[in-house]
């Protein structure tokens, strides 16, 4: 490169931190929107919304059933849209958001792109916050698209069959639930997954938190409500629900108030639910902050060692033997008396199973998931109640019958996690280049 050409390049540090963060966020935003998973989510949202407009899909948490006789509950009421947003934000969006946000930095790390990025003026905090903002903005755009779909299919496009289920159009019926329910839920999911992924760089842990929270919600917070539960305890559980589902159900849906009420009234966003949404939004952002801080601390590795360790290391390095010249180069491989005979199917499978078991035993996630599952099952069993809100006598049969479904879900999820992880390991560690050439029966 000639002097004149290099001189024509200039380095401009104006704008600094904000400019670099914007560049990273913009790239991540564009990348997230190009991801097949986002398009899959968009297609699902489209199909669900279209199904709702045709009356073949219903999302209800406990009341306002529009299919029964009498006056129909409007699918366009704020209550109906709030139910839709509550269920979909936590039941559907979470997994897509967690995967996209949690793997954002891990993906760059696996692509070994961080070494060059670290040598640029880009600071680790700018990079990590830029990533989070980019991926979050992309999913907030998906929410906006979702709201637009709801308005289009439920209010704008004519549909004679559903005329009785449509109320007068009110933009706030769509916007307020999206802002109060969906936005905090998505930022919570994105923040927790991003924080864990960025802080630990362990992809398997990215999915642990959303799954654990989902299980806790589905099998406890949203369903467990015995008659003897005090009002204050119930409100505490409402506050603890990151989805806001328990609050909606217990406050408005548990006792049916009639279609007229749901069609004409708006959801009363009392201080409890506002505080709940702010809390979980803050939890998401706090987890992100933790992950970013941890990432920034480890990005330019300092490897703190004590003065004693430094002395020990320097002393042993000084005493290390010199490289030996060309030893053993002339020794023939024949002297090793090597033999080669490919193993049979059983021996190969047994060897693979042993290696897999050792790998599995070293997975930290397993020691998190299994106690969580046991805790959940035992907790649920202890609190089982009968038809008249009386405690049930716990017998082995009763326990098996009541927990069978939940157990099956948990174990299946574990198998899916570790099965996929096992298949991906060879590729991630780039062992497959060697592994695929071995005389091993696949």
């Amino acid at each position: 490169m000639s002097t004149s050409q290099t001189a024509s390049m200039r380095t401009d540090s104006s704008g600094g931190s904000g400019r670099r963060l914007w560049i990273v966020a913009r790239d991540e935003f564009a990348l997230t929107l190009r991801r097949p998973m986002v398009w899959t989510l968009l297609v699902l949202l489209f199909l669900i919304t279209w199904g709702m407009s045709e009356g073949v899909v219903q999302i209800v948490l406990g009341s306002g059933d529009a299919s029964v006789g009498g006056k129909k509950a409007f699918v366009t009421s704020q209550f109906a849209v709030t139910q839709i947003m509550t269920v979909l934000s936590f039941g559907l969006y979470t997994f897509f958001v967690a995967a996209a946000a949690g793997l954002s930095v891990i993906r760059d790390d696996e692509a070994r792109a961080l070494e060059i990025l670290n040598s640029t003026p880009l600071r680790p905090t700018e990079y990590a916050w830029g990533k989070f903002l980019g991926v979050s903005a992309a999913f907030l755009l998906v929410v906006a698209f979702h709201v637009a779909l709801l308005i289009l299919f439920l209010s704008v496009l004519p549909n004679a069959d559903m005329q009785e289920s449509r109320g007068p159009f009110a933009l706030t019926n769509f916007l307020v639930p999206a802002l109060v329910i969906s936005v905090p839920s998505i930022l919570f999911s994105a923040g927790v997954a991003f924080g864990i992924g960025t802080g630990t760089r362990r992809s398997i842990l990215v999915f642990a938190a959303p799954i654990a929270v989902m299980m806790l919600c589905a099998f406890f917070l949203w369903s467990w409500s015995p008659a003897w539960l005090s009002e204050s305890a119930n409100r505490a559980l409402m506050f603890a629900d990151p989805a806001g589902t328990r609050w909606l159900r217990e406050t408005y849906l548990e006792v049916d108030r009639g279609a007229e009420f749901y069609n004409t009234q708006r959801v009363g966003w009392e201080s409890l639910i506002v505080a709940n949404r702010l809390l979980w939004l803050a939890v998401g952002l706090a987890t992100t902050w933790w992950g970013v801080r941890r990432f920034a601390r480890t990005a330019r590795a300092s490897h703190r060692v004590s003065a004693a360790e430094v002395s020990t290391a320097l002393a042993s390095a000084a005493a290390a033997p010199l490289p030996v010249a060309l030893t053993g180069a002339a020794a023939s491989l024949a002297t090793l008396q090597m033999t080669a005979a490919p193993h049979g199917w059983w021996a190969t499978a047994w060897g693979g199973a042993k290696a897999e078991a050792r790998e599995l035993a070293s997975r930290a996630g397993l020691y998190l998931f299994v106690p969580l599952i046991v805790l959940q099952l035992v907790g649920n069993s202890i609190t089982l109640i009968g038809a008249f809100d009386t405690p049930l006598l716990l017998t082995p049969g009763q326990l098996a019958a009541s927990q069978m479904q939940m157990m099956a879900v948990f174990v299946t999820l574990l198998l899916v996690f570790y099965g996929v992880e096992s298949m991906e390991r060879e590729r991630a560690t780039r062992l497959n280049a060697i592994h695929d050439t071995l005389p091993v029966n696949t």
Partner: protein
Amino acid sequence: MLAVRNLVKVYPGPVAALQGVSLDIPSGMFGLLGPNGAGKTTFMRILAGVLEPTSGSVHLDGLDVLANPDTLRASLGYLPQDFGFFPHLSGEAMLEYLLKLKGVGGPRGVRALAGELLERVNLAHAAKRKVKDYSGGMRQRLGIAQAIAGNPKLIIVDEPTAGLDPEERLRFYRLLAELAQERTVLLSTHIVEDVAVLCRRFAVIRGGQVVALTSPHEARSQLTGKVFEGDVSPEQLEEVRRTRRVTQAVLVEGRNRVRIFEESGLCPEGFEPVSGTLEDAYFLLMRAPALSASAIA
């Protein structure tokens, strides 16, 4: 001038990767030669500001770069040994992204500059292809393009010719030589030829210590009249190894062609005098019990 003083790096373990490296690296091309695991990459990563040392100091033209890493990065071009790019971006988009992060621009805009840089590294034809479809050599060239962007005062290249074919290697030599006319270029390699072709001066690092600081010419001249080559049978080879300072021994058509160094300059029977190469000097240094005073400037 890059001044490095008593640089120590101890990894948890503890393992000492650098044991008090001190070097003055002038403007121009400077080589860092050493075997795998000698501490070259640790040294380069510290200079590039992506790794913190345990102790020591680094000054670039008087600026303490360890205390002011942001200032260093604005004037640094770095090609790591092990690196990657965003696979979803095209080569041009990736380079444009890095140029923007570095704050580098050109008279005709960032995109045009990215195109010109890609042309410089012979990658213009693949500018629109996704990085994930690049070969190892193409990725290396894209790495070189981002390293030379923005008129950096200091360019650090770690094992840059690995993965390049002979033609690309020559092209890269020329590019580095041109760049070194106006700035400090620090080249780390275990390929002796890289240093022989490119560097006016170089340091040899072994076990985290600098064992020689010299020039290719000085290193070769120390060997004049002291290197001999001969064929020996497999049975004789062990005896030669025990009694002589063997620099290289290769098996050619069933016979061991051995090069030895004789301090006295007396040619042993069955051997003939040959010109000493930089590789001979390198192997001697690697196996020397102490620093060769004559080889250190």
